[in-house]
């Protein structure tokens, strides 16, 4: 395990803070569109020459919530609060436009709050919206509705950018994003094989939200090249992580120090974002029907609820995982409604679980978690010894 800890990747060091990344892009002349999480239609925005960035993973950069606290009660989740703070404090400096869709109840409440506040300050930002059906897209009317909405969004983007939609540009964008997805999965596999620390891998994967897709691809390619040939340096009891965001680096570090190894994840900003590769299509309606219908299940994609349990079980089996850590985003109801059912299912399958909860107030003070992680690791070790003894006895 120790050997892997010093493997600092160039890719990891290339990941800048959110504001620094955006400032850099702005100075290079990018037209930035700030997207609310979780799964915006990045390819479409990109095909119009916009550079979409996804506003999550801001917790490390946003530590004061002075502006957000004027608009949102403290029981909004950290993603929404840090997003609001960032948009209100620096949105007009960075963003030429914003985009949101009906990802969750908290996010749907934000557009008018942000719009009216920015408007009052004389710094309005155009906002695009989309409603993605929350019923199965296998129903013809739902697919028709999604396509109508996509068409309307295309019209608005044409007006905003002054460019006509281009099938070629869209195909190019979808190819880029699929390449990024494929590479992201490859990088994850390197982590699962112990060739790169998951903490480093997750930092690189999460940074997809704050940089142009081609830059991200370059980092992914370079990192994969660098680590592909290395001998597995990181060993440990294999666990799976689940949640909206990966835990802060300090916690990932604690997980590894405790002798655990993240062999799989079901994290919205990671695997759930790139776990499905849609088929190429020059028709955005068909492309997004495929993507939103088949994408990796998520607590926020309501029709994927049944598939989610199966997918978690399948991933556990494939990754030979012995423990499961929920990284709860405080106040995220979508996640918390699912945890008991998944926990029961895992425990029935003999997989031990640990629940951690990260909120705005404890994101930077993680000491209390370390002890729990160590205790969990010890429990898994004892479990492993026990099952070895049982096997020997047989």
């Amino acid at each position, binding site marked *: 395990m120790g050997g892997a800890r010093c493997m600092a990747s160039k890719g990891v060091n290339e990941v800048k803070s959110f504001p620094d990344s955006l400032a850099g892009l702005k100075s290079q002349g990018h037209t930035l569109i700030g997207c609310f999480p979780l799964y915006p239609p990045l390819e479409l925005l990109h095909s119009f020459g916009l550079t979409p960035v996804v506003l999550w993973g801001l917790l490390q950069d946003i530590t004061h919530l002075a502006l957000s606290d004027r608009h949102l*009660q403290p029981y909004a989740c950290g993603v929404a609060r840090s997003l609001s703070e960032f948009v209100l404090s620096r949105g007009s400096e960075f963003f030429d436009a914003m985009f949101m869709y009906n990802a969750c109840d908290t996010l749907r*409440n934000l557009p008018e709050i942000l719009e009216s506040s920015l408007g009052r300050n004389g710094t309005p930002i155009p906002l695009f919206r989309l409603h993605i059906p929350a*019923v199965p897209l296998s129903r013809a009317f739902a697919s028709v*509705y999604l396509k109508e909405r996509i068409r309307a969004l295309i019209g608005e983007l044409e007006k905003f950018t002054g460019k006509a939609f281009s099938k070629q540009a869209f195909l190019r964008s979808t190819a880029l994003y699929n390449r990024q997805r494929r590479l992201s999965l490859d990088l994850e596999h390197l982590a699962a094989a112990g060739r790169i620390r998951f903490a480093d891998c997750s930092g690189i994967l999460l940074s997809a939200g704050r940089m142009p897709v081609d830059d991200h691809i370059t980092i992914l390619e370079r990192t994969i090249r660098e680590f592909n040939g290395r001998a597995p340096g990181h060993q440990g009891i294999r666990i799976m992580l689940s949640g909206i965001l990966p835990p802060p680096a300090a916690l990932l570090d604690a997980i590894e120090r405790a002798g655990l190894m993240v062999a799989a994840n079901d994290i919205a900003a990671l695997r759930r974002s790139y776990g499905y590769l849609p088929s190429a299509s020059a028709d955005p309606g068909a492309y997004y029907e495929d993507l939103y219908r088949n994408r990796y299940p998520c607590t926020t994609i309501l029709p994927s609820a049944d598939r989610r349990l199966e997918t978690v079980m399948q991933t556990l089996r494939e990754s030979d995982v012995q423990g499961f850590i929920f990284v709860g985003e405080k*106040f995220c109801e979508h996640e918390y409604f699912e945890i008991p*059912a998944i926990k029961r299912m895992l425990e029935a399958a003999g997989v031990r679980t640990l629940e951690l909860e990260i909120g705005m107030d404890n994101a930077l003070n993680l000491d209390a978690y370390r002890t729990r992680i160590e205790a969990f690791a010890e429990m898994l070790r004892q479990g492993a010894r026990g099952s070895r003894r049982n096997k020997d006895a047989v």
Partner: protein
Amino acid sequence: MPSEEIQGEFRKNTSGKRLSTMIMNDYLELHRRASEGAFVVWIAIIVPAELLGGFENVVYAVPESHAALCAGKGAGPVLCEKAEGLGYSTDLCSYARIDIGTAFDGGRDSPTFGLPRPDLLISNNNNCSLLVKWFDVYHRAWGVPHLVLDIPFCYQNQNDRDFRYIMDQFGTLISAIEEMSGQRFDMDRARESVRLSSEAFKEWKRFLSFAAHRPSGITAFDSFVQMAPILTSRGTRRLVDHYRLLADETGEQIKEGIFPVPDERYRLLWDNIAPWHQLRKMSGRLADLGANITSASYTYCIGALEGEYDPYEFDGNDPLAWLARLQNFSVCPHGLNLRGKAMKEVIGRNEIDGVVFASNRSCKVYSLMQMDQMRYIREELGIPCVMIDVDHADVRKYSEEAAFTRLEALLEMIEA
């Protein structure tokens, strides 16, 4: 929603007394018909029960309404704790925790012995999408089919595209129920059910209109309590009769000079779900201060289109079209502008002196716009406002003294 007598003399009229009986009968009837083989559907509050009225032997239960009843009867904490014991976070909506606590304990501690097991779950996401997650809990535990109505959030009034989308979903819903229940949907039955609901909503608004009188003929607490049958008797003649009686009697009381807060000095508006565990206490203590919460966004939205106050009347034609158009009637699916529009209207009509924003951590959808809405009401309309913390159904998350310190400060602001 709970039924209880609120203001001593004032509520002891026929409609007030008949409310408890009506609600109890509705639940008994539900259990009886379920045990005799009716097809049982659990629906979210905004799912159009009138559509179910198009079937001969389909009965429905509304878990949110049942949870409110439990909270009003003081069973909130014990039922929440049961759900928490099963691993459901204390941060989840208290309605959901109460309901899960009841459902997985065979209806124990519920004043209605819980709800009969469903054959089908129908949720929708226009109030909140957590309802979908909540119903998924039962879908997983019991293997009961779960259908979702997807209602796009409204930042503006409903448009044609969304209307058509909702109509299409109603079609799917009807076919699914036909197939599962083996019954045929009868459009005329549904039409009659819609006609009765529309009539009932008119009477409901007539009852609420007495809040414009000085002193007010009602308190918002009356409306909280009296909205219960909308969730248990929607689309029935008895609902129309009940609200007609309620409105008539309230009118009579005004003529006779009987008022809930006779020495009313402050006329307030409540924004959020009713504080079910505090109805009697809060209304009584406010009355002692000469304050009456006369109106509430939670109850004035019923039967109206988004951003409006007056009821949306049925024209006698397509009942499904009326239901689809009215799918956004509650406050939660409304953006800031629509909420502000309706509130401004009510503040004007009912001569409101101050607004109480009940910040409710259980119901983020209702609450997470309130800080901006409060700013709008205060700055644009010049009406004093206050925000208090209340969980609508979990009394453990409410501090009476903290709330009243703020409420008293509001009254001082109004005086100033």
